[in-house]
């Protein structure tokens, strides 16, 4: 125990030293200063034509996809442990709340006892057709299926998990083996880019979810328009994503934590500092609640109420949009 701890600390020290040598402003003590001194670059989604942001860096659009792929390939295996450590386990509560609020699944008891059932409802496909974008590890998908089966007694709701990253999908397939859905037709994994969902027909999806994924997209507006296309009229776009804290005091504490601790945890646990540095920078760069709400509106969605729900004071937020009928 003692030996392993000292080994760990020595390794940590070495890594930090290496970090200093490699990139002077990426070291632990500097990242906080770096984050505070350098105000987030202008809010415009693209700084120059053909470029986009990757964390605080500006990169060519063509490269961002590869870089994001690299990040998630390297974190795929330790994804769950890292999420638990970084969010102190709260991400599970957020995901549970997200799914419970959406209440997926069509309760057969409620629909059969309908006194005024519309003609043709019998021929309607049962259950919901859910598309979980950037859900490679299946976190949201398994929760959706569990909720539909146990809460709504719906054995027909199916989830298509789409992810751009094959490593994350492999991780998800591996995890699916320990659930009852591994070999059922209710769960499907596909490799897809959220901006071009050609394999998904238009107006075919009841619920489009994206949890902690949309901030990595190169063109968020294109992805939103694609979501609008695949959703049925009346279908719902639901997005769980890191957002902006409303309280300045909590925000200061949170910034300390995210720029100070998270890259360090990434380095110690996953052995990959840069990926987690990207993670916190991409969170910082993501538009605020109102800006993102307006982006959803711009894509043609109706937003419920104020358009979002803050979780833990705004560290994360749930945004929803409903595709209008006709």
């Amino acid at each position: 125990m003692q030996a392993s701890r000292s080994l760990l600390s020595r390794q940590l020290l070495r890594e930090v030293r290496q970090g200093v040598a490699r990139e002077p402003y990426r070291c632990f003590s500097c990242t906080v200063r770096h984050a505070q001194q350098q105000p987030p670059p202008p809010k415009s989604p693209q700084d120059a034509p053909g470029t986009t942001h990757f964390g605080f860096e500006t990169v060519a659009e063509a490269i961002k996809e590869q870089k994001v792929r690299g990040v998630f390939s390297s974190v795929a295996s330790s994804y769950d442990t890292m999420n638990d450590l970084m969010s102190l386990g709260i991400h599970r509560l957020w995901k549970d709340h997200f799914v419970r609020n959406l209440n997926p699944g069509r309760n057969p008891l409620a629909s059969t006892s309908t006194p005024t059932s519309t003609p043709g409802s019998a021929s309607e496909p049962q259950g919901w057709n859910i598309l979980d974008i950037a859900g490679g590890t299946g976190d949201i998908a398994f929760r959706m299926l569990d909720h539909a089966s146990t809460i709504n007694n719906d054995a027909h709701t199916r989830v298509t998990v789409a992810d751009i990253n094959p490593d994350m999908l492999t991780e998800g397939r591996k995890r699916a083996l320990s659930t009852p859905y591994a070999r059922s037709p209710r769960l499907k994994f596909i490799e897809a880019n959220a901006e071009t969902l050609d394999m998904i027909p238009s107006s075919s999806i009841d619920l489009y979810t994206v949890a902690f994924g949309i901030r990595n997209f190169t063109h968020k507006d294109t992805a939103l328009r694609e979501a609008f296309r695949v959703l049925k009229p009346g279908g719902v776009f639901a997005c769980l994503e890191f957002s902006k804290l409303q309280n300045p005091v909590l925000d200061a504490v949170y910034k300390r934590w995210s720029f100070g601790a998270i890259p360090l945890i990434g380095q110690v646990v996953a052995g990959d500092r840069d990926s987690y540095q990207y993670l916190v920078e991409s969170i910082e760069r993501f538009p605020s609640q109102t800006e993102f709400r307006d982006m959803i509106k711009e894509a043609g969605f109706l937003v419920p109420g104020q358009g979002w729900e803050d979780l833990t004071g705004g560290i994360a937020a749930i945004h929803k949009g409903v595709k209008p009928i006709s």
Partner: protein
Amino acid sequence: MAPARLSKSLLGSFRATSLRPATARQQCCYHSYEYTQPPPFPPAESAILSAAISHVPSYGFTSNALKLGARDAGYLDVSTNLLPRGVFDLINYHLVTQRLALKDSVQFPPQDQPGTGKKLGVGAKALAIMAQPSYVPTSVAELARLADEIWFLAGDASVDTSWYTKRASLSAIYSATEVFMTQDRSKNFAETEQFLDARLEDVMKVGGFLGAFGEWMNYTGHSAVNVLRSKGVRI
């Protein structure tokens, strides 16, 4: 010179407000005959909620009623996510539409006791939902608006502190009666009506007493001051 300018500028600002285009969303927090109030709910929400209300008699204020309403309106089950507060939005819709419909349904002869003549009750379960801490502010605000509407329809035009006391007492009576109604098993809610009459009588009595007491205080105070003045005290 200065006061004239001030009055002119004041007049100007009044003109500016009165010339504001009517298309601009005019928020009136009082009863106005000049401006039409914007519809309380956006069209899509309204379509789902109005269809859902027709399922309330058989399903109660539940998410099932909401889902069936969404289906009737041509939406999907999942579209109920358009209502962020779910069942509470349905209850709120019922309360708001009933309140707004009050002015068309209430007819009472002049010089009569104010009476709503219409049952607005929502039931025990809905009351329980409305009492959930996160919904309390909206519920209380709706109660205040209802009390205001009732006094307005009753022709109340008071501009003194009784404006507040009247609304407060009516809100108290209303909520007490509603709670009583949830336990009332009598035919046609006869007991509730008795209860309501008794409470209104109480208010009359208490209000009458307070009014008389105030008048007496006023008289005594003035007398005392006048007596002192007559004795040469400079007040």
